[in-house]
């Protein structure tokens, strides 16, 4: 009868140890998630209106909506939009396009 009880003790200890490890891992995972979220990359795009034709390029410091820029083949263009896109999403879109092709 006594022999039946002995294996419960290490089992309880194992459960307690497992719980502590799980809690620690959970906390570490949460912190890692936070770190990853802060490192998620975004790309800022500048949208230029070249006499009706829209042209996109990477945002440069000094760009602002309403600014005239000399970046169009047929003269001056004007910045009509600046917005951020997630690089991850863009990569996925690229993969999708290449697959379609």
């Amino acid at each position: 009868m006594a022999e039946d009880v002995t294996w419960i003790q290490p089992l309880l200890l194992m459960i307690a140890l497992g719980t502590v490890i799980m809690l620690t891992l959970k906390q570490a995972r949460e912190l890692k998630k936070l770190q990853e979220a802060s490192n998620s990359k975004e790309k800022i795009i500048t949208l230029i209106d070249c006499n009706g034709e829209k042209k996109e390029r990477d945002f440069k410091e000094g760009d602002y909506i309403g600014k005239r820029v000399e970046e169009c083949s047929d003269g001056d263009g004007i910045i009509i939009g600046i917005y951020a896109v997630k690089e991850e999403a863009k990569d996925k879109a690229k993969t999708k396009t290449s697959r379609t092709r």
Partner: protein
Amino acid sequence: MAEANLPDWISAISQLAFLLIFLMLFLGVNQRFQIYMWSRDIKAKLLVLENMARESETKAVEYMLRHNAKDPKGILSKVKDFFLIEPVSIEPIDIIRRMDHLFTIRRTVFRSEFEKAMPEADEVARSKAETAAEIASALNWIYKIVRHLLLTGEKTKNWILIMQLQLIMPQILKIAEAYKKALNDFIKGAPIGDSAGPIVALRLAGQDNEWREIEDETVATSTVIEGRRVYIVKARGPGSSVGKPGAATERLIEELVARGEKPSLMITVDAALKLEGEETGSVAEGVGAAIGDPGPEKIRFERIAVKHGIPLKAVIIKMGLEEAIQAMSKSIYEGSLKAEERVRQLILEETREGDTVVVIGVGNTIGVGQ
């Protein structure tokens, strides 16, 4: 008497241990253990908050140094500890004027401090530095408040306080993360979600329009849309500023009324907080002044509209709190295009040819010129 063997000892000790644990449950040891676990979790997250606060301070100082600022650490420390005591609200008479007075003083103090510290920098760079310092200060404040609550909870053994703090920590971290990212976006000078209002104003005005400064850091222009004279107000860009849209609109309307050109419609366009589940960049229309201001600017819209009996309409572009202070997303940009269409539609539906309309693009105009 028979000698006890090992299994008997183990059984006796485990029974004793369970008895002790059972007694401890009544003595609150389980709660103390729970508090310890919560505190440990909060401390780990507090460390993340501290790092965010320090990093943002470093970034703000670096930005100021790039523009040859004198004693950037000194100015940052001043901004960090600067406070504004809210006016007495138990006596509400003239509270708006008192509030406005205090906000104006705060704005003037900040501006003059940055003018003194960054004499070689232009207005745009100074406004960005000012916002960067304010964001660093906000992050530092979040860190200090969380630390205060944790230490108070531990000191007074207030497990409810610690539990509440632990439960709200993910939300606090999310807000802090949004501020940290916003700092980078402000330094770059890209439009933020809150710039949706000024974008609509600029798009309605069109290019090459003459803008005049009508109020402190606030500009106005006029254009013609389908035979209606439309006056447009926004903060002066492309620096980081919200201007004084209420005061500017009040002045503009008084000028218009004085020359017999009473507006038939006033439309405020602003970014507004969406509810969870709502689509970012969706546009809605309503009545009233769309402006997230503590009072002084908003009340001016309402008072001037009431004084001259002008219908006051609002068009909002919905977004989350984080989206409002971070670089504008494509969906918000597209939302601002939809909002422009909605404003044009409102003008056509609610006014006739020859009428005068005032449209105000409310929000921070960073990255949006004129």
